[in-house]
């Protein structure tokens, strides 16, 4: 018997789940806090939600593995999730599995999107008019990505595919028009498939050997602004 706890804080949601031998025991997804500008509730919801989920499954001591979404996504959210995952795994003495947030989203699209055998395109809103995207076809292995691109660039890549993909995620909703022009099909906005589900973090994280907690790092895909400005300035001065 193997108990896996999985969570993701790369998007505005705080997603948490507990799985035992591939069977989902509990799953939760808390949206941003009401008021206060809708700041994600990662810091205040993640551990309480995990504790509730783990409590129902036999307590922290019963946990065999921790799986955490490593992005791409919100920088602060990723750090909250990964710092939590590393500390939990270290304190419990169990392996930590870092799972691509886009791979988890793609898995949800494939399993619950109703797209038949079509490729699954996971697209998150990266702000600043760009998206984070990755494509999976039939397995959890990613065919492309993760990468950051403009919706127009992504639409061109979609148009070049043999089969049109089923796309979902906050970025697919935000740039629905552009991506549909490229040939992507996108489920209705209310469909749960657009949100990262922690059961998919658990399912992917349960595979493979897991890592030393210290080796799990975020996938930012972008440098800090200060770094980019500095590089731009030094290029201008050349």
């Amino acid at each position, binding site marked *: 018997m193997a108990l896996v706890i999985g969570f993701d804080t790369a998007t505005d949601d705080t997603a948490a789940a507990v799985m035992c031998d591939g069977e989902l025991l509990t799953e939760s997804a808390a949206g941003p806090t009401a008021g206060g500008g809708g700041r994600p509730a990662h810091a*205040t919801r993640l551990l309480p939600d995990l504790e509730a989920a783990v409590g129902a499954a036999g307590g922290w001591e019963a946990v065999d593995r921790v799986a955490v979404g490593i992005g791409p996504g919100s920088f*602060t959210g990723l750090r909250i999730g990964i*710092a939590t995952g*590393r500390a939990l795994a270290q*304190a419990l003495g169990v392996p930590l599995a870092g799972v691509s947030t886009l791979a988890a989203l793609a898995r949800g699209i494939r399993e619950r999107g109703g797209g038949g055998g079509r490729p699954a395109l996971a697209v998150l809103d990266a702000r600043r008019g760009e998206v984070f995207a990755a494509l999976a076809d039939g397995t959890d292995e990613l065919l492309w990505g993760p990468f950051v691109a403009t919706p127009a660039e992504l639409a061109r890549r979609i148009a070049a595919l043999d089969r049109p993909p089923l796309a979902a995620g906050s970025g697919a909703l935000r740039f629905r028009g552009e991506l549909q022009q490229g040939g992507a099909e996108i489920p209705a906005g209310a469909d749960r498939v657009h949100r990262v589900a922690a059961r998919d973090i658990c399912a992917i994280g349960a595979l493979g050997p897991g890592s030393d*907690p*210290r080796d799990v*790092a975020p996938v*930012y895909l972008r440098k800090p602004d200060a770094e980019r400005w500095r590089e731009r300035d030094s290029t201008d001065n050349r």
Partner: protein
Amino acid sequence: MLLLALETSCDDTCAAVTDGAHVLSNVISSQAAAHARFGGVVPEVASRHHLELVNPVVDAALHEAGVQLADVDAIAVTAGPGLIGALLVGVSSAKALAAARRLPLTPVDHLHGHVAANFLEPEPLDPPFVCLVASGGHTLLAAVHERSSYKVLGQTLDDAAGEAIDKAARLLGLGFPGGPELERLAAGGDPDAFGFPVAMTREPGLDFSFSGLKTALVYRCHELGEEETSRRRADLAASFQAAVVGQLTAKLERALDSGEWSAVALGGGVAANGPLRACVAALCEERGLRLKLVAPELCTDNAAMIAAAAAELEPLAYPEYLALDAATEAVERRATSNEQRAT
């Protein structure tokens, strides 16, 4: 009681293990080099470094103390004030470490930590005392009547003392952090060459202000022109430093005027400044007061001081702290300077 503490409020990733007033380990991983090329602390850069460093630093603190996580009785963490993204790395790590082992957790106010550094070996200082903390992040004059809290007598209204020094150092073409370099340059200059204003000495109260001083330096450099500024760098540095030290000591002196104090503690990164130490020492000697100079490794941001503060506070039992958030503002309940003045 073995306490493991984490501190990630600014640009140092810190972890420490303490047993009462004894510091068993105090690991500080400075990111100064990473921020030097930007001339100051960049929050996103700091947060990324904290996440890279936090686990190795905690491991090192446990290892140096010769203990394992299973031996630790409680965990403490800086919950604010500071850079929110940086704080969240420490808070998230500390909460998860504590939760997995059902340990109690104490959120600590960073400034209370600087005050509590005085309670640690060697030569711990017991309240009552007046504490001056000057660093790149804060300038605080505090009345310490008990170990579990402090009263703010004065704080900076704009830049922190160390921040002003860093900005001045940058203007004079020195590296970051600017403190040691500015002091070295000033040593060869005349502190009376330029009459920079010692701000806030005419206003009542004990608050500080350093932004006007920085502006005065900018104007003076502009007036002098590039060549003359470069030629008189040492005099500019010495005069600027004298104005900073002058303001800090003037306010400390004013706080001591009530006559109720018998001891003074000087902490924070700027406390390493030689002329400041000399001025405060002279003031204390003149008034017959005990002066406690906090050890250098406990002066700059560190986690041992966070453990020292936590040791005086009621911890949150598991699972009360699971929803704990970081805060950019002060986090413990305590009297503010306004309340202090009203009484």
